[in-house]
């Protein structure tokens, strides 16, 4: 039986991982040192990510690892369309792109990325996908977040589909950006039509508050008591900041696989490769875990929450190159329903 995981355990896990940082041999290799020298000459590098929290930690961590290179960041849900539009217009202002595999496919298909040698940054072959254009960096899982003064963890369901129940009407908030992606993952389990029906139930029957604004503010003020489909590591950051909430990973466990890419035409080619490689490298992953409470959800993970989920036999749906097309189609079908742009 699936067991819910406490956030306290999660925080301990994050700290354990940060203490066990992997070796840094790759940084000392002549190839990397030469690349670093070239990158220093370029002086700066620009990275775009899908969320401010995903990129906010990067300048400090990267500068600590490779001093002398200034990192400019942009965190925004709309980076994919923005990057495609800019590239179409012949403007190339971004060096490194960080997003979910799902979001990266349209950009990859339009030749926006370039392949690099990921092995020099200590990555295994299996961590370089899409013909070497994307280096896998980290995984996240979707979580159900609730105010601890309103709900007990045991009272809440273990399955996403039960959240469409009438009893949660008027109590939930969700992200316009994340919800279609969560339902896209659930759709891999219940099928496209099932996903569309689920979306209709949620937005129609549950009076779900759908917003582009941060959901933690709605939880903090008490405007809503449940946030449906949040990114797990953001929730752990909220808890660490004193927000009176806890979270639960429901089944099927929906994960998102993130990756980094170097843009095909970049203003800072060496710094771009160095930053992208660093982010996907063991050092980059460790720094990310330390700064953002992230866990690795891939099979064999020793992080406490993923390990407990795997031990409990929970159904985990991974974001893979093979299922991305299907998931993207479901997201495209569900998204207009969620936003009210289709019936």
């Amino acid at each position, binding site marked *: 039986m699936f067991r819910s995981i406490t956030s306290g355990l999660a925080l301990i896990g994050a700290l354990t991982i940060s203490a066990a940082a992997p070796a840094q041999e790759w940084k000392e290799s002549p190839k990397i040192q030469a690349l670093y020298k070239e990158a220093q000459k370029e002086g700066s590098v620009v990275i775009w990510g899908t969320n401010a929290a995903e990129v906010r930690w990067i300048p400090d961590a990267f500068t600590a690892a490779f001093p002398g290179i200034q990192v400019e960041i942009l965190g925004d*849900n709309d980076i994919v369309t923005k990057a495609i539009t800019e590239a179409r217009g012949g403007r190339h202002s971004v060096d490194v792109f960080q997003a979910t595999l799902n979001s990266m496919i349209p950009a990859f298909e339009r030749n926006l990325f370039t392949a690099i040698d990921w092995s020099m940054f200590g990555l295994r072959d299996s961590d370089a996908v899409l013909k070497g254009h994307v280096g896998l960096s980290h995984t996240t899982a979707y979580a159900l977040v609730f105010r601890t003064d309103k709900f007990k963890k045991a009272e809440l369901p273990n399955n996403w589909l039960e959240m469409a129940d009438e009893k949660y009407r008027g109590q939930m908030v969700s992200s316009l950006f994340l919800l279609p992606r969560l339902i896209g993952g659930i759709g891999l389990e219940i099928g496209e039509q099932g996903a569309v029906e689920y979306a209709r139930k949620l937005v129609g029957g549950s009076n779900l508050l759908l917003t582009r604004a941060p959901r933690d503010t709605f939880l903090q003020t008490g405007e809503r008591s449940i946030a449906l489909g949040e990114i797990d590591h953001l929730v752990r950051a909220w808890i660490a900041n004193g927000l009176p909430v806890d979270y639960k990973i429901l089944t099927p466990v929906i994960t998102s696989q993130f990756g980094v890419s170097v843009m095909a035409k970049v203003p800072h080619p060496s710094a771009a490769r160095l930053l992208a490689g660093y982010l996907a490298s063991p050092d980059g992953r460790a720094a990310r875990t330390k700064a953002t409470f992230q866990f690795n959800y891939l099979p064999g993970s020793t992080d406490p929450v993923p390990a407990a989920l795997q031990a409990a036999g929970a159904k985990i749906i991974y974001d893979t190159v093979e299922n991305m097309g299907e998931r993207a189609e479901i997201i495209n079908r569900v998204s207009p329903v969620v936003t009210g742009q289709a019936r």
Partner: protein
Amino acid sequence: MTGRPQIDLAGRLIPAAAGLLVVLILGLPLVVLIYTAFRGPGDFLPFEDGARWTLNNVANLFDDPVILQQVLPNTLIFVAGTACLTLTIAFVLAWLVERTELRGRDFLFSLILFPSLVPTVLLAIAWITLLSPNAGWANLAIRSALGLSQSQGPFNLFNMWGLIVCQSLASTPFMFLLLTATLRTMNPSLEEAAQASGANFFQTFRRVTIPILLPGILAPFILITLITLEQFELPLIIGLPARINVFSYRIYNELNPASGLPNYGGAAAVSILFLMLGFLALLLYNWVTRENAKYVTVTGKAYRQSRFALGKWAIPAYIFLGIYISFAAVLPALTLLWTSFFGFRMPGSASWADFSFSAYLVLLSDPTFWRAALNTLIVAVASGLIVVLLATIVAWTVTRTRFFGRRALEMLTFTSLGIPSVIVAFAVMVVYLSLPLQIYGTVAILVLAYCYRMATVTRITRSSLIQIHPELEEAAAASGARWFATQWYVLLPLMMPSLISGFIIMFIIGVREFTIPLVLYSPENVVLSVLLWQTFQAGQPSVTAALATLIIVLVLPVIFFARRFLSTN
């Protein structure tokens, strides 16, 4: 003195160059937008290799039941509701300030203008904090004061009514300014005659005041309809959670879908549909303002504006003013100030231990804030200067010459009034992505896009020129002054108050503009209003509130300067 002064080469070249610039800035994006609507596939830019002619974008529009059954009706309800409510609130406020013996009118005037001077995003954030149905501070306070056991309300921001009320509060100052001008110039002799004939206040108001003012009310009403049609911020922040889709959001959504690729062709097709609505309203506005000549109330005959004593109506009048000013100015400002120091801790439950300056320190130590502040200043000042310069030359060309195409130029500048900013941003984006100028993503593209507001200033400069008799220029020319010297030393000083007014208006528009930079922004050209939205989205309520407070502090001196300057000129 007879005849027009001779116009030398400079007097021909400068207006021609200005005319060309106006066509490039205002006309070209419009043409490219229409072109884009007939190019496909939808995710291709119109001039891109692989793009071809197609009717699919337009056909899809009429095939889409959501556009016809949801977006269009929602937009019409939103626009009609907002225009009517705005007119009602603004008329009462304008009448109280201009036609009654209300105390503190000058101070109240400035407070009423507050929402028009700060970014609407900022007001939206404050209203959400105050009026969210479950935990809005105003709702909690009312439920507590009245001992209500319900867990929601009495106010709910997230529905069509909430959207209409908020948009009306935000739009009222603009309508108020237009109506105060109308009321101020109204000859009261007819009202006095009615009262001398025994009519009471309400009879006079219904049978004399309203009919006289009707044309002067109708024109701003149509204008506010046009302006509401293009609103984006509140539909995005308040309408979207309630799944109220209006056309401006639809266009934005085509360009930035929650998933998949941008649909340029689809966005252009939707834009054209609503441009047609805008043009219809514009034609109506033109027709109404032309009819205004039949109702001249400002004559050469001297009169003194009389003011009504409010008597027993003073208390309801102050209550009305109090409610408006509280929700439109004071409460949003205080909410933001409080949140910047205490986060979301409610007044009453917070202690001094919760007080912190950290949000301001975070903000002031962030280079992005300084870049955004500098960009905002550059864009607001540069677009203001360019617009004032071009608008002055266009107005001179139209009123002082018989140059070929001057009427078309005037029409073009005026037409820009009917083009929603989300369409402006999109059109400008397509143009400058297609031209090899490399200004997409820079501050320059924002400056060019903001120049779309030229219509506002053209009308000011044109009115100013009409009031200056050409005999002054003729005298200068007869004394041997060349064209440029005549304009520089004679006309420009006389027009200066109007030019400064135009610049102030453009500066304020530049500081609060949100839609255009949201579509066109990059890390390089980020402005304060977009930074406000980004910090809000990133879950930094205190930093967002601190930024909003700093914007208010930046804009407040401008309000008082503008009020003093505009009232003395």
